[in-house]
């Protein structure tokens, strides 16, 4: 899963983007991992994440198989953290997304205290992760750098779209939908938060950051 690694943007643009995830390694520490993964998610809630999710069932805001016509006027966009925890039924990668370093750092310290034995990773700016580790008193074990995108980059859309769409590294948030949401916010047809919620529902593992998305949509609408 490199799905959180290659988010587009400068280090500064990740000031409200901290993804902390837990993973069990197949054949090494996956036995009995399910309860530990649930504990990880449960622990995250008290630090006010903006999203939670697992790689099988998705995030805290999910598409519905049975929306009613009324939903076009009154759609519930409240993240359902309890559903994520209750729905987890097999060992996989689970993630908690925070919109500030203090919460992420405090959560990392709490995870260390809980001693789950799972691999824990922080995906954000290099400096942001170092600060979280420092606050929790943990030296980094390994680091995976993103070197960005290269090759036939003429096939990529503009930066404002990329900032949004690359928050789902699996590619489930299409460039076209991100562009459409920027346009809708620009035209005043949806608020940045509403537009962010549409994008969030497409992320299949709950690592999309709706808070950062709303900020980026508002900035893009203003032409910033």
């Amino acid at each position: 899963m490199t799905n959180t690694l290659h988010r587009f943007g400068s280090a500064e643009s990740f000031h409200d983007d901290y993804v902390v995830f837990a993973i069990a390694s197949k054949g090494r520490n996956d036995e009995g991992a399910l309860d530990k993964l649930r504990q990880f998610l449960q622990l995250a809630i008290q630090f006010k994440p903006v999203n939670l999710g697992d790689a099988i069932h998705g995030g805290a805001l999910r598409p519905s198989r049975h929306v009613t016509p009324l939903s076009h006027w009154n759609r519930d966009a409240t993240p359902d953290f309890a559903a994520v925890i209750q729905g987890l039924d097999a060992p996989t990668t689970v993630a908690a997304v925070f919109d500030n370093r203090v919460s992420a750092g405090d959560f990392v310290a709490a995870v260390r205290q809980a001693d789950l034995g799972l691999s824990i990773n922080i995906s954000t700016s290099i400096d942001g992760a170092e600060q979280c580790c420092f606050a929790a008193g943990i030296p980094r074990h390994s680091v995976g750098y993103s070197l960005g995108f290269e090759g036939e980059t003429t096939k990529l859309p503009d930066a404002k779209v990329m900032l949004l769409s690359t928050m789902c590294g699996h590619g489930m948030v299409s460039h076209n939908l991100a562009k459409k949401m920027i346009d809708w916010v620009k035209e005043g047809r949806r608020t940045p938060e509403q537009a962010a919620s549409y994008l969030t529902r497409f992320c299949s593992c709950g690592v999309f950051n709706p808070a950062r998305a709303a900020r980026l949509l508002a900035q893009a609408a203003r032409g910033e």
Partner: protein
Amino acid sequence: MKINPDKCVACGNCTYVCPMGAIYIDPAVRRATINQAECVECYACFNGLSQEHLNPTFVRTVRRLFQMARIRFEPEPDVCPTAAFEPNKLDWPRVVRRAFSDPRVPHESTGVHGRGTEEVKTNDVSGRVKAGEVGFTIEFGRPGVGVWFRDIQKMCLALARAGVAFEKKNPVTSLMSDLATGTIREDILNEKVLSAIVEIKVPVERTEEVIRLVWEIEKQIDTVIALGVGARCDEKGEDNQVAPILEKLGYKLERAKTNIGLGRITNQPQVTNVGRTPRSAADALVGSSGRERQ
């Protein structure tokens, strides 16, 4: 994936959500249509769109009336009003598209969801990348461009010629017919996927050589590449070996995934599993344990 023409009302919502841009309204039939050559079977349309179950005739009539009156109804953009998407059975080799594009489907070769790789995120228990080594993830087609296996093979052949070993627990490696040459099995070369990751590991001293090789080969490949570089930190949590090389090559290091080293091996030693029933190639790739939200 297919769209049921009896249900589709040509609202166009799905045309925006397809990561490949493979869905369009065909003016001849006035229905959403999938360009099957470009579709990578990622299921973003089926899994990502919420579903209403309205009567198609009713919706078409309302849409026609609104259109005549030049009234723009602004429905939710992430809803298929008639639940018109219907997954179809995928045979070999097309099933490869879904295995590499739909993140909900785990790769049987690694048991990992998403793109099927663990990289350095489990390095604290796997020891995959040790001090003095560098792990590369070369991801093709990301973000949102897609890649054909024939293009991935160009890079694999070049890496193999350079004497680089491929990570064995990797979905692309599992589809190689010859690990020594980096040859990918012929029957999937014309399959397109949303993205795929080639993983290799080399001594730190070869970091620059590998990157320069990637730079050379990527010019021959008709897609984008996302490079990831994994390194083991020292006891103080510092990386003073790999980062300077990357910066010397002109990379501005902005973002990283940091393994904080809290994992440990807890499984009991396993008894060897003999007499396991072999399964078909398609099953072996996608895995009978694959699950999806219905």
